[in-house]
């Protein structure tokens, strides 16, 4: 007796078709995949299955592009970036730069949002998983570019000056919603997806742009 969940509708028809030599079409395979996902994943603790079954267009379109091996159409990519840019929430108090010491702690922490995490605890930014930042930290990843001397390289000696404004805003925006600047970026959308709070994002911007931050020494 087959105790595993049975595939329904189109999936069964498609698999029956598979008795013939050819594979189902791309669209049919996409359908089979979606149904298999629904049947295989479940909600656990505070992690709802909708995180996967109802993911947004940004993720859906980029996933399809990745799987096909073809880059996203330029117009589609631009549209995704605009949608994400419009969704950015800028600092409610107009303050972009926070405390770099707290920012370092947030960047070091990988806590939060897995089914074993305590939802009452503060989430971390996971930043060192992918990026180098403070030179003293040798345990850094290379999935993303090095951010060592981030502010220094960009000539930000006074983050509150008018000259620094574009960089400061870009930095906030990139952390809040990385896809606003690169549709299929590998980087999470820390603010937009509720990973980090406004205050936490502010502290990370401080880590990157405060001239006194170890990142800029």
């Amino acid at each position, binding site marked *: 007796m087959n*105790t595993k969940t049975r595939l329904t509708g189109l999936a069964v028809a498609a698999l029956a078709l598979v008795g013939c030599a050819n*594979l189902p079409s791309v669209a049919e395979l996409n359908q089979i995949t979606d149904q298999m*996902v629904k049947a295989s994943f479940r909600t656990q603790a505070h992690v709802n299955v909708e995180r996967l079954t109802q993911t947004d267009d940004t993720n859906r379109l980029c996933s399809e592009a*990745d799987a096909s091996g073809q880059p996203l159409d330029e117009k589609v990519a631009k549209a995704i970036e605009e949608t994400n840019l419009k969704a950015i929430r800028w600092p409610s108090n107009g303050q972009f730069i926070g405390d770099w010491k707290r920012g370092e702690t947030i960047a070091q922490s990988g806590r939060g949002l897995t*089914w074993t995490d305590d939802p009452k605890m503060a989430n971390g930014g996971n930043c060192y998983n992918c990026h180098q930042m403070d030179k003293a930290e040798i345990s850094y990843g290379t999935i993303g570019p090095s951010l060592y001397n981030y502010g220094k390289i960009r000539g930000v000696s006074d983050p509150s000056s008018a000259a620094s404004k574009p960089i400061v805003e870009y930095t906030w925006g990139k952390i809040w919603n990385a896809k606003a600047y690169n549709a299929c970026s590998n980087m999470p959308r820390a603010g937009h*997806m509720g990973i980090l709070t406004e205050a936490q994002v502010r502290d990370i911007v401080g880590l990157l742009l405060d001239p006194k931050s170890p990142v800029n020494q």
Partner: protein
Amino acid sequence: MRQALIPVALAMVLGASPVLAQKTASQGIDEYRAMLQDGNPADLFEAKGEDLWKQKRGPKNASLEACDLGQGPGVIKGVFVSLPKYFADTGKVQDLESRLLTCMQTLQGFDPQAIAKTSFGSGEMANVTAMATWVAAESKGMKFNLSQSHAQERVMYEVGKRLFFMRGGTHDFSCASCHGEEGKRIRLQDLPLLTKNPGDGIGFAAWPAYRVSNGQMWGMQQRLNDCYRQQRFPFPGFASDATVALSVYLGVNAQGAASIAPAIKR
């Protein structure tokens, strides 16, 4: 303590100066990993798995010696590097752990859904892991050679590919976020590129493995489960179709890679 077991070399690594540390951190970790190779606790699980296979157990009080893992009843040698594959008796593609559940059900009378819901490392789930460890050990050194001759195997490869690139969860991660590019690492952990053969004993060819850091024996199902957990995805059912499809994708890509399972990891 009369007999110190902390290796001298490890103490040297811990004392490395931060100035030189960037160059030697990777070397130090490689040295530590080399030291771990002698005396893999996976041997303990392997021995346990072999005993469980031959023991009369379950409501039907039968052993698993008649279990067909793909090359006929009771054939163990070589099956690990041919899984997942299509099985005519269940009409579906199955990986090792899913197939063990099938046999535990049909031969011994166990409830596979109850086992699938049991936490890793406890009860019958721990027994499945032990048996998977033993079965894998019987193919140690052999090259992966998954079949793509059955139509369902080819469909599962395509589904597995889509799963590999499927972004989701709060962090928009897909498998490819970490395993989609050559030469990347997360913190100091090197990440193999899994869209092609990453080499002998790497990726798909390195599990089941004993993890020293938490003293746990992990099969491929648990490895996938923990990847998904860290991706902030919802919970993948044990031996669910999605996990099998993903394994087909990884296993077919690993064609020709030699298995080192059961391995030992930090």
